[in-house]
């Protein structure tokens, strides 16, 4: 290795050391530039940044989660994605993938936090339970709340991986027994990027990291803090079944002819029209497929409260406060029926109670008619 002992190696140096050719490296940069939606010169910008920038240390915390975000990340289409971040380059601490364990691991984390104070990127996977002093999630004798606050203090930026960290996901669905709380409600005064999804797309996760490495700043975020490059469009807007939607051709049940023909899944509960994500454009597993392509509607995993906005297989959400199976239309139709009945009763009552008045009006009119 040609590295100066006091200088941290750059990403490129680490990759070459791991046996990647320059050709592999350039392919990776080009792929990333395309995902990020950069112009043609973007690939060169990324390549240049990765050759010059010493690796940025990453601490990756796991709280209330299922590790699907990590799984998604290590399966992103280009092998370098996993290697560059996870394998042995940048990741100083992650419970799932690190070699060290116990006190050694905790010591490694503490060292990174001390040595690179204000420089490291904190990735958080999972929500944080705050009920009962946070006893519902403890690692190494500390509660998740404490670990988060401690790690966030010296972080350059916080990346919230997945719906758990971004909005609480399933564990914060009603009644949320552990008071599972998303990161942005617990940490203030730090740049926070939300990368929601259950899990988010691996390439999206890699893209966000690469953007931060290349440009040294946060990607452009939307109104709720998600990178615009990946979350500015609804799944519906990039859906290949959209023409069927516009034509009014819908799957009625999952086993009908329309489903076979690949019609729009809107009526069987596809939440694509309300969900912001890049699934339609980037797809999953090396661009193989995504839920809608597999014949199942999107259920909005990257949206806040998606568990509480059920049912999954119906387009209309249950209306809060009226029990299950009570969408707005059912309540509306009942209300209209009650109103109509009320009106009928009122009309009858009017004719009885105001008989004299109406009679006089009629008589008056008839009189005038005769006189004319």
């Amino acid at each position, binding site marked *: 290795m040609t590295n100066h002992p006091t200088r941290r190696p750059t990403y490129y140096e680490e990759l070459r050391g791991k046996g990647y050719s320059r050709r592999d490296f350039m392919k990776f940069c080009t792929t990333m530039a395309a995902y990020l939606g950069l112009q043609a010169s973007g690939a060169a910008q990324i390549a240049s940044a990765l050759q010059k920038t010493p690796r940025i240390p990453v601490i990756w915390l796991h709280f209330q989660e299922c590790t699907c975000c990590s799984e998604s990340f290590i399966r992103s289409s280009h092998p370098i994605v996993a290697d560059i971040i996870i394998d042995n380059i940048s990741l100083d601490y992650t419970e799932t993938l690190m070699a060290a364990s116990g006190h050694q691991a905790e010591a490694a984390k503490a060292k990174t936090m001390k040595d690179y104070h204000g420089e490291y990127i904190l990735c958080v996977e999972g929500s944080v339970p705050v009920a009962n002093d946070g006893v519902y999630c403890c690692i190494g004798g500390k509660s998740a709340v404490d670990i988060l606050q401690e790690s966030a203090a010296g972080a350059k930026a916080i990346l919230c991986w997945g719906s758990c960290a971004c909005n609480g996901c399933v564990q914060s669905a009603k009644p949320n027994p552990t008071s599972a709380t998303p990161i942005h409600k617990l940490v203030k005064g730090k740049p926070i990027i939300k990368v929601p999804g259950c899990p988010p797309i691996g390439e999206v996760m890699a893209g966000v990291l690469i953007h931060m490495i290349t440009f040294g700043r946060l990607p452009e975020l939307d109104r709720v803090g998600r990178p615009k490059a990946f979350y500015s469009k609804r799944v519906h807007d990039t859906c290949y079944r959209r023409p069927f939607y516009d*034509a009014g051709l819908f799957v009625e049940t999952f086993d009908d002819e329309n489903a076979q023909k690949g019609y729009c899944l809107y009526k069987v509960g596809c939440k694509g*029209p309300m969900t912001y994500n890049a699934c339609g454009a980037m797809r999953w597993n090396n661009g193989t497929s995504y839920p809608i392509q597999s014949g199942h509607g999107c259920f909005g995993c990257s949206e806040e409260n998606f568990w509480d*906005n059920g049912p999954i297989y119906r387009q209309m959400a249950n209306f809060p406060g009226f029990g299950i199976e009570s969408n*707005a239309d059912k309540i509306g139709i009942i209300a209209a029926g009650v*109103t109509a009945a009320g*009106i009928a009763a009122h009309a009858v009552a009017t004719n009885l109670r105001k008989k004299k008045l109406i009679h006089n009006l009629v008589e008056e009119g008839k009189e*005038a008619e005769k006189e004319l």
Partner: protein
Amino acid sequence: MSTLTHKLRRVFVWELPVRAYHWLNVLAIVALCVTGYLIGNPPGIMSQSEASHRYLFGTIRFIHFVAAYVFFFNFVFRIYWGFVGNKYANWKNFVPTNRKFFKEMWQVISIDIFLKKNREHISVGHNALAGFIYFFTFIAFLVQCITGFALYADMSHWWFADAFIWVSGIFGDNFGLRNWHHATMWFFILFAIVHVYLVFYHDYVEGRGEISSMGGGWKFIEEEQFEKEHKED
């Protein structure tokens, strides 16, 4: 019986802009409710034609968006007219500003709902209760416009609709936004049912031209009542 004969006096109540607003509003609301309901509950169509030859749902949505703009700007115009129109169009008809307003509201409730038989005269324009309920409809208009444009914002390239993008933040996501937008539609439907019934009811028990007033703008007032109010002024 001739002693009972009412002598009626003609009053020009609804000016042309008010009537135009009313009927344009009717058209827009009918179009919005019908297309809105269909968007929430698309009809099942079995068709042999290719998707490329059809644009049914796209057309339904297009009508919804056009009607929404008509509805919104019509509403804005009506607010403007509430400041420059005649006294029956004035905004004070809709906002309770004095005790007389509440007194008349109670009067209308007792006559129209409890069907009491008092013969006190009720305003020739909007009665107080109607005016106050219209105030709530304006709030429903506002809710519908705000939630509607917020849902539309991401399809729009016009700053005006885009300006509503923040609304979905209040609901957390577009699910809740959409649900409330859809539920509020039912307010319009229930309102329309009651509104039309009450117009017939008033025409029936008062005989002052309630139904036709939205056509020509004329209503009729008893001569003695006219003299009385004239003196009061």
